[in-house]
Every structure is written in structure tokens, then in C-alpha cells.
């Protein structure tokens, strides 16, 4: 019955999608945005949670993905999916380059470096208004010719599911094992034969690529790209989502994105006061539940269907299939 949790997740997702039409447009929009943040939170957890690279440039990559797609479509009349793919490729390349430049950095140095990169991107986009339309915002083509938001919900869900599947395969492969080894002790990982530099560059490139995918979708859903997509407030929001959910697992990071996004909307009547509340929740999480608030529930959920076994055999085991790199 080890597959029971997966079956439950799939059944719940199918049920939710089948009933998505009952949501009013407002909550449909909230669900779409939650999925957008879900992709970003999962990919940031790949970088920060699995490899231990605390980058603050993730939202800058979402912004780059969105602008790249929007501009290429505007200039060359590319089909929208191709524009989004071009944004992903651009983010992978830039992310890999940033990963290479930051090879010897970690902790606060890496955070400050990526913060600087993020600000350079934001200010460049704001300033180059002949190209990007600056603070006025760059109008983008809509991904779907639909009068309702429901088709966007299905697309957002498909992108989130695809992202989780691909990132899940990565973290369950030997690369995932190397990522965690680097997070635990970079020097020992190198002594164990792990090509630390290559792993760090790959992690940066992959995570940035998924951020670009989320940004590309966002650009062609919202219909306008502004520099604020990549600003520090957005990065702080993503960080809160991922940390509150649990940054060392992809599903818990996505759970955090959903919980925070829906709560932010639900508590909207409290205005700006809801933001300090989330700040306090973040502080309490860091102090008392460093694995995140969603993680204990997720671990409990994963135990569903398991026979009563000894604690030793209940712990994670070696993947029983060959997994390529």
C-alpha cells in the first residue's frame, strides 16, 4: 500500500479539477496564482532546501522569464508556448552563469550577491522603458483565447504537475543525493567524489529555468509585466511561503505557497495587518518548526497505508530502481 498517498493525491486533484468550475472567478484567480507561486516555491526549495544555496534572485528569474517571452513574442511574433520556452532557456543559461560565478560563495555572501543581481535586474527593467515599458508595464499577449479563467486554471495545474514531476525525478535520482550531500557538507561531498561545482551550476540552472517557466505563464495570464514581479517584496513572500511550508521537500513547499496565498486573500479584510501576522508566523516557524508547518502533516500523510513496521524500516530507503543522471 505504499502507493496509497499518491493515489489519494491524484484522486483529490482529479476531484478538485472536476469541481473547479464551481469556483467563482475571484477564487479561481487565487487558485491560479497559488499554483504560480507553487512552481516558484518548489523550485526555490530545490535550490535552498536541497542544495543549501540560499539565493535571493529567484523572483528576478521569474521576471526575466516573463519579459523574455513577452518581448520575443512582440518582436518576432513567436507562438506563445515557444516564447515561454525561450524564457525558460534564457533563465537556465543565466541561472547557470550565476551559479558559476557564485561557486565559492555560500550563506550570507551568496544571499547578498543574488540580492544584488536581483536589484540590477529590477532597476534595468524599470529604467529601460523603451524596451520594457518600464514602470508603466509591458502589455503581453494572452495565452488562451478564453473569456473565463477556468482554462488558465487547468494550464496552471498542468504546469505545476509537470514541474513537480520533473523536479521530483531529479531529487530522487543520484543528483538529488549529491545535492543533499553538498547541503550537509560541501567539503566532504567533494572528498566523496561529487563534482560540487557541476552540481551547484546544474541546481542553479534548473531552479532558474522553472522560475522562468512560472514567470512566462504569469506574463501571458495577467496580461502585463511590471518590474514589481521581481522585486524584494515578492522574494520575501516566496521565502515566507517556502519556509512556512517546509523548504526541504517539494510538496511541502507547494503546500506553503497554497496556505499562504489562500490565507492572504481570506484575511484581506484586515488590510496590511495580515502581513505582520505572517511575519510572526514565520518567526515562530523558524524558532519552533524549522522543517515547516506543513511538513509534519505531509509526513503523517505519507505514512498512510504503511503496515505497522519498525521505526528503522519505516525510514527512507534506497531507491530500488536504476536511476540515471
Amino acid at each position: 500500500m505504499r502507493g496509497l498517498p499518491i493515489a489519494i493525491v491524484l484522486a483529490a486533484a482529479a476531484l478538485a479539477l472536476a469541481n473547479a468550475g464551481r469556483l467563482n472567478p475571484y477564487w479561481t484567480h487565487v487558485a491560479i496564482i497559488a499554483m504560480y507561486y507553487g512552481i516558484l516555491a518548489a523550485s526555490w526549495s530545490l535550490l535552498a532546501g536541497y542544495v543549501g544555496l540560499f539565493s535571493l534572485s529567484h523572483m528576478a528569474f521569474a521576471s526575466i522569464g516573463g519579459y523574455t517571452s513577452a518581448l520575443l513574442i512582440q518582436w518576432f511574433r513567436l507562438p506563445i508556448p515557444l516564447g515561454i520556452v525561450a524564457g525558460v532557456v534564457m533563465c537556465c543559461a543565466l541561472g547557470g552563469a550565476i551559479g558559476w560565478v557564485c561557486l565559492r560563495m555560500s550563506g550570507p555572501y551568496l544571499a547578498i550577491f543574488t540580492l544584488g543581481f536581483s536589484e540590477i535586474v529590477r532597476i534595468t527593467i524599470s529604467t529601460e522603458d523603451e524596451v520594457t515599458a518600464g514602470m508603466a508595464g509591458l502589455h503581453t499577449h494572452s495565452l488562451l483565447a478564453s473569456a473565463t479563467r477556468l482554462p488558465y486554471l487547468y494550464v496552471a495545474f498542468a504546469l505545476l504537475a509537470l514541474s513537480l514531476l520533473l523536479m521530483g525525478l531529479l531529487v530522487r535520482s543520484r543528483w538529488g543525493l549529491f545535492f543533499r550531500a553538498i547541503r550537509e557538507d560541501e567539503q566532504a561531498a567533494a572528498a566523496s567524489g561529487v563534482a560540487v561545482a557541476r552540481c551547484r551550476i546544474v541546481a542553479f540552472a534548473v531552479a532558474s529555468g522553472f522560475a522562468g517557466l512560472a514567470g512566462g505563464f504569469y506574463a501571458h495570464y495577467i496580461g502585463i509585466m511590471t518590474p514589481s514581479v521581481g522585486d524584494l517584496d515578492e522574494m520575501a513572500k516566496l521565502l515566507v511561503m517556502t519556509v512556512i511550508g517546509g523548504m526541504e521537500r517539494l510538496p511541502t513547499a507547494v503546500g506553503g505557497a497554497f496556505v499562504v496565498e489562500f490565507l492572504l486573500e481570506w484575511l484581506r479584510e484586515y488590510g496590511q495587518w495580515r502581513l505582520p501576522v505572517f511575519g510572526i508566523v514565520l518567526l515562530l516557524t523558524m524558532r519552533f518548526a524549522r522543517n515547516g508547518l506543513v511538513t509534519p502533516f505531509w509526513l503523517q500523510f505519507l505514512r498512510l497505508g504503511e503496515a505497522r513496521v519498525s521505526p528503522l524500516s519505516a525510514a527512507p530507503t534506497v531507491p530500488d530502481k536504476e536511476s540515471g543522471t
Partner: protein
Amino acid sequence: MSGRAELVRGVGLVKRFGGIVANDAVDFVVAEGDLLGLIGPNGSGKTTLINMLTGHLEPDGGDVLVRGQRMSGRPPNVYAAMGVARTFQQTQLFGRMTVLENMLVPGLARSHSTWDEVARRARRYLDFLSLSDVEQLPAKNLSGGQQKLLELGRCLMLEPAVLFLDEPFAGVHPRLRDKLLDRIRELHQGGRTFVVVDHDMESILRISRRLVVMARGSKIADGEPDAVRADQAVLAAYAGL
């Protein structure tokens, strides 16, 4: 050393930290089949030497050769891939990963490895090191001695030609220390080459076939343990006589 292949050679290795010369033109050779003890007082430059010979520290002068190949500028994982494994003075494990996962990392880092083959080999070594019962525990939950054994096991997963063990007996219970010594002897008899750094003279002398002594960043003696122990310079520098 005659007739035996040279595995690692340090030629005129120099390392400075600010005004301190940690290694001053040190020549060091490890040949196939050696079981070499590297001793010296605190601050004599033993760990610095090991760090340079395993790629963790770039020398300021001199060169490192592995199987005759110049290694300057190469990262530690290349040394590992060429059969040079090491443990650390302060045990450095992947603390929140399980014991088995700690073993899988070096195994899977080797080219052409597969999960099944690596997992089989990891379990064989865990059995050899009496760690099978704890394979699913996080490494940080092991005792100090078990952690030293696991670090040795992680090295073995590289199927190395030479193992540099930096203070493997430090803080280890005497019973586990004996087990560690037995395992090192068995592995040496099985064809592995060892360089063991430790302050525990008794343990070093129980296993070493060759002894190298360092003091103030220089090598002051290199030879048979009995001859080295009788060396006046060694007595003066190491024992303070």
C-alpha cells in the same frame, strides 16, 4: 619502496597562512602497499600536508602528483576519482542523511555505477564495519566511534588506492579503536594503502610499517618505526626531550 608503484607524491610542497609557514618545501611519497604513520606535535603541518595531497588545499609552491600525473588546480573530486580518499580531523559526515545514504554518495559518484550495485556494495561494507544495524539512522545520531567507522566506510565506497586517515582514533572508545585498527590491518592485508595521522602513538606504532615525522612545517624523519623512534631529532621535536 623499490619495485612498488608510486601512488601519491608531494614535491617541495609549500603552504603559508599569513606569516606562518605551515609546510616548508615538504617532499612526501606514498607507494602502493604502504601503511604509513604520519606524526608530529600540534601545529607541525600534518593536516595541511594531507589537505594538499588530497586536493583540498592549493599549495603555494611545489606540486602534487597522483600516479605520476600533475594535479595542480584540480578539485578534490578528481583526486577521489583517481583513487585518493580521505577522512577528516573532525568527522565530516552528511549528518541528516542516513548511514546508507552516506555510503551511496561516493559509490554513485563513481562513473558507470548503478544503484543496485552500489547499494549491494554499501551493505557489504556496512556489515564489515558492524554498522548494518544502523543503516537507516541519520548519521548524526551515531556515536563518535561509529561516525569514524562510517567515514572510513564512505572512503571505501570509492574503492580507493590510498586512504588518508586524519586522526581516526581521536576521541574513540578503546574497544572501537581496536575494531578500527583491526579493520585497517585487514584492509591493508587486502591490498589497500594507508596514511594514518594521529597523536595516539601507541595505535600508530601498532600498525605502521613506515613512520614520517613532521615538526615546524618540515619533515624531520622518514623510515622504519624503530629507527625513527630512536632518532634524536624526533625525540627532541616530538617528545620535547
